[in-house]
């Protein structure tokens, strides 16, 4: 085993793996959100964007496999670390007190696993259309929407609007984003420490980056189901 391989298996090496994979996932979360916010720009914009992604072909598959691997690495490492951490204290304390640890920091595994469960639910819902209504099945037919350019594509816009008109579904997304925000509020601040940032000038950024990023992701992603539910978006879809 080389020094580098050994380091990757060490406690600090895996800390780096968590931070770098977590950062990559943050990049995905941001890009995914920015793309989807085109919902507010209307059907033409959102459907053209969706078609653009589909047309990437093999590139899209490369991105999907990359994302899946990063997810797998992040989760597998997290579970291994968590199991070791439990084993490191076989006998619990009768009395425990928390000082600097937070609800977010103590529930990283739980919030992480809930985010994973949500990701599967989200794929079932918007990618595989499990249990889709007739209206949604019609919207996702490959020729449901005619673009200004003349090309035909799925009506992703209608699919999203129809999906979020169900209050149960819309609220499940809001709840999932609250969980993700909690995960990010500790995770993103934590990255500074893990990657060795010691600058006193960045003290404030370290502290607030996580909560700020979590709040941004929460607000951005929740704006879509909430706007649909409130009837502010998608009145043209019947």
């Amino acid at each position: 085993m080389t020094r580098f391989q050994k380091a990757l298996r060490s406690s600090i090496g895996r800390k780096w793996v968590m931070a770098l994979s977590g950062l990559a996932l943050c990049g995905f979360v941001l890009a995914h959100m920015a793309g989807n916010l085109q919902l507010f720009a209307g059907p033409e914009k959102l459907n053209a964007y969706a078609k653009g992604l589909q047309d990437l072909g093999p590139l899209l598959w490369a991105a999907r496999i990359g994302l899946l691997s990063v997810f797998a690495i992040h989760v597998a490492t997290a579970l291994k670390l968590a199991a070791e951490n439990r084993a490191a204290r076989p006998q619990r304390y009768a009395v425990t007190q928390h000082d600097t640890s937070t609800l977010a920091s103590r529930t990283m595994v739980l919030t992480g696993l809930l985010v994973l469960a949500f990701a599967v639910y989200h794929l079932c819902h918007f990618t595989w259309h499990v249990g889709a209504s007739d209206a949604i099945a019609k919207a996702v037919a490959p020729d449901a929407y005619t673009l200004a350019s003349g090309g035909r594509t799925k009506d992703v816009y209608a699919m999203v609007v129809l999906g979020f008109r169900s209050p149960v579904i819309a609220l499940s997304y809001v709840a999932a984003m609250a969980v993700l925000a909690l995960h990010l509020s500790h995770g993103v601040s934590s990255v500074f420490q893990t990657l060795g940032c010691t600058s006193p000038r960045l003290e404030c950024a370290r502290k607030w980056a996580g909560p700020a990023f979590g709040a941004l992701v929460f607000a951005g992603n929740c704006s879509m189901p909430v706007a649909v539910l409130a009837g502010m978006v998608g009145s043209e879809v019947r």
Partner: protein
Amino acid sequence: MSAKLDLKLHVWRQKGPGDAGRFETHEMKGVSDHISFLEMMDVLNEALIAGGKEPVAFEHDCREGICGTCSMVINGEPHGPLKATTTCQLHMRHFKSGDEIWVEPWRARAFPVMKDLVVDRNAFDRIVQNGGFISANTGSAPDGNALPVPKTDADLAFEAAACIGCGACVAACPNGSAMLFVAAKASHLNHLPQGQPERAARVLGMLDQADAELFGNCTNHYECGAACPKEIPVRVIAELNRDYAKAALAVEEPRAAGGGDG
């Protein structure tokens, strides 16, 4: 003016490493609030001995907050409720009459309980033996101040060097991680010119040993820094994370960290 306290003490009793252990409850009447927590334990032990019972085993040495042996988790907090204070420096005036106090040993797989509140902290010594030192040629002592150390570096090194190796960081960490200890010992030397030649070998070696001792992994809860009686800043852990990555990625082989016993 001194007050007398009536306390209900739940103390962890364990015959040896193999014993399951349990809490033993003692009603303490009229405890002087002038005495320290350890002296309160002495009072308890005198009474136990007078009653023909086995006294509670606990570690103590200097009783002035510098040796780091007085390891007790008091009501869920290593060294008790006072910030920046070891158990021996904690006085009973910080408790109220009628208080219930739970006293437990440091709990970590890497710190097995030897007896009652005494744990085996040799893991820390083995970590230091794996890099927490500098190699110096013997001979006549070098001139004082012959090796310039910038004030900022000296201050950073000193902050870390304040570590007394008590293990409160491990006891406080929800993951039973020793990262604050390892990082303090590394940071102390890594900020000084004398620490540079072995810097890479030091961080690799010390972390290797800490992992082998089966301490947990740091997930940035920072409970260690809050519990530390010497207020070592968690900044030293960030430094270690950075130094470790540099050492792991470096092209050249690190200078072997040798020795250790001397």
